[in-house]
């Protein structure tokens, strides 16, 4: 005996259908304070040499905010560019490839950014 359930499994809302929409808004909200703090920080670091930047980044609060900013920004960027590819790339295999690369590149760059911040923060 079969019910229509098997046709909607994995396709439907089941509380995850709005994940993209919701995470885009949630990351946007988080990026309001994080983004302002980041731009303020960049301005204070203008013209600073390597030692000053390292000393600045070693502060635990700054390292935390910087890692959170990078991770949140890359998540938000991934969601945004995903929609751009979905909207403008119409060739099936090209769209598929673009969406996969979009995921990989964002995870790669986001991980490199966060690990670099941690490396400086925990470095000797």
């Amino acid at each position, binding site marked *: 005996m079969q019910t229509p359930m098997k046709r909607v499994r994995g396709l439907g809302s089941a509380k995850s259908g709005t994940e993209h929409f919701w995470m885009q808004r949630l990351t946007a909200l988080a990026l309001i304070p994080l983004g302002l703090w980041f731009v303020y920080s*960049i301005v204070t670091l203008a013209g600073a040499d390597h030692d000053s930047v390292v000393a600045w980044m070693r502060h635990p609060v700054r390292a935390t905010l910087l890692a959170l900013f990078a991770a949140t920004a890359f998540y938000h960027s991934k969601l945004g560019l995903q929609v751009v590819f979905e909207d403008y790339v119409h060739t099936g295999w090209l769209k598929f490839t673009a969406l996969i690369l979009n995921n990989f590149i964002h995870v790669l760059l986001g991980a490199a950014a966060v690990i670099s911040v941690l490396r400086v923060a925990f470095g000797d």
Partner: protein
Amino acid sequence: MTASNKPASGGYQTDSPRFDRPLSPHLQVYRWQITMLTSILHRATGIVLSVGALLLTCWLVAVAIGGEHYARVAAIITHPAGQAFLFLWSIAFFYHFANGIRHLLWDAGWGFEIKRMYASGYTVFAFVVAATAITWWLAWDKIGGGA
């Protein structure tokens, strides 16, 4: 409509009999207005910010490695072309930031009236000009004083 309206390649819909129906007018038909301008700019600045995120990672990795690598990235950033990109990035940031808040307010149900939509649109542009000017005034003041 005629066959010339079919997409050049890769369109999903060319095989569908329903595709021969009249099409909605496309972008170039409409008169420009701030509502469509702010929408298009939001996506365009988002793409600029994504490219800027690549530079952010380069900078952070260079800070972590130090030495020659940092010098190379610092040279790119301080080069006139690098500064020009940072200037563009800051405009894109402040625009996407302010218009993003406008979007969040819409999501909360505020500001859908035509009058408010226009007013908030102009507010975004005013914010971008003011915030970009203040930011670069402070940054150049700092570089000038530090060097």
